[in-house]
């Protein structure tokens, strides 16, 4: 029912990281945006900041809830989706595309082994 693309890996707390290059795109899943409802605010780190796997890196707020964001992968932030500051609803509309949160230069590719595959994540949300 919810989209779970195969080209990325997942945290149980509903964040994803793409796996196709040395720079990972990080965001929240379709399931997560649906659970949250209308996203109205995101708080993200700045370019150059370090994030660490399983640690908090920001906050996403919908009208009804405040949720911490956890890093699926460690690394250095190389880009932040500034469009979300004016259009946080992009997270709802296109969580795997225009609603991405960060790009991260991956510190240790071995960390991907600790994440859920698309299939494993899908099972968790069913």
């Amino acid at each position: 029912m919810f989209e779970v693309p195969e080209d990325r890996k997942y945290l149980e707390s509903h964040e994803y990281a793409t796996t196709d290059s040395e720079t990972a795109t990080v965001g929240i899943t379709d399931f997560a945006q649906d659970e949250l409802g209308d996203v109205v605010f995101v708080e993200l780190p700045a370019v150059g900041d370090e994030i660490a796997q399983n640690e908090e890196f920001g906050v996403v707020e919908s009208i009804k809830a405040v949720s911490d964001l956890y890093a699926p992968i460690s690394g250095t932030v190389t880009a932040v989706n500034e469009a979300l500051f004016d259009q946080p609803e992009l997270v709802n509309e296109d969580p795997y595309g225009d609603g991405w949160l960060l790009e991260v230069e991956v510190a240790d590719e071995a960390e991907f082994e600790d994440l859920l595959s698309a299939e494993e994540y899908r099972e968790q949300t069913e």
Partner: protein
Amino acid sequence: MALRKPPLYDAYAGDASFTGFGGWEMPVEFDSIRAEHAAVRESVGIFDVSHMGEIHVSGPDATALMQRLTSNDVTRLSPGESQYSTITDESGTIIDDTIVYRLPRGDAEYLFVPNAGHDEEIYRRWVDHRDEWELAADVENQTEDWAMVAIQGPDAAAAVAGTTETDVASLSKGDIVEADVSGVESLIARTGYTGEDGFEILCPTADAGALWTAFADDCTPCGLGARDTLRTEMGYLLSGQDFDPADEPRTPYEAGIGWTVALDTEFVGRDALAEIDAEGPDETFVGLVLRERGIARHGYAIVADGEDVGHVTSGTMSPTLGEAIALGYVPTSYAEPGTEVSVVVRDREKRAEIVATPFIEDN
């Protein structure tokens, strides 16, 4: 304790997400809070508000009992009228707020609506005081007998008119009438909690489904999420959150509803409130708008001049304004609209300004 399910639960169970509220399992969101909010501001929405309590009071001393347990002047009500009021304790602290309907039938028959989860406590309070004062009044907790839906929005009158022969367009704000609504014997009141024109319709629990179905085509189903953003934009109080006898004890004067206090009547809390009225409250309920990115939420600190001066009791992103709005208490010296304060959001101070409520134009 298991959550109480509203009588309409099965009518929309597959269409909504749910939340526990005041002991009831209630729909929080159908499609999207933002879309539901817009429907009420621009056309018309329907809410199941069957979690609200209903206490029925009748008998020769019904008026006396109501008068001595609520802060407003019940004797101002003619049959078929209603008033907003509070229920206070001896110290003048609000236990609950309520709408008191004087029913269109009978000599002096009342139905009043305490908030979700308060019905049993308030019912006991009425019975105990009736017995103590030896008044001749019948008090009944009818919460389980009534379903209640709210039809709210600029197109509400047209939507309700399409379901009944009763002339609802000519009902004044606050009035209540008996009516046949799509074959269901109901009470229609021109009341609501959204700031829009609207009606609240009470019907027997068993007929609730027929009532919901009658409005299903014309009205957007709305959950408690939109109910909360709509009332917050109006600066309306939420019982248990903006005041609460245990966690947020406030008098009607602090809560900005001193106009519900009729000091020329005798009621529990009256003497304490007369004193507070003479001195003026130390703190007062205000509206705030954040001037930096962020959202103020329940419990966040309000700071000014480097000091912690108050706290937020309700806050959200206003769907109408696209701004973060909040309600909370500050010392009266900081209450003037235009006063600059800050709200502490996750350890960071965000600039905010005190503003007059409602945040949006009152319809």
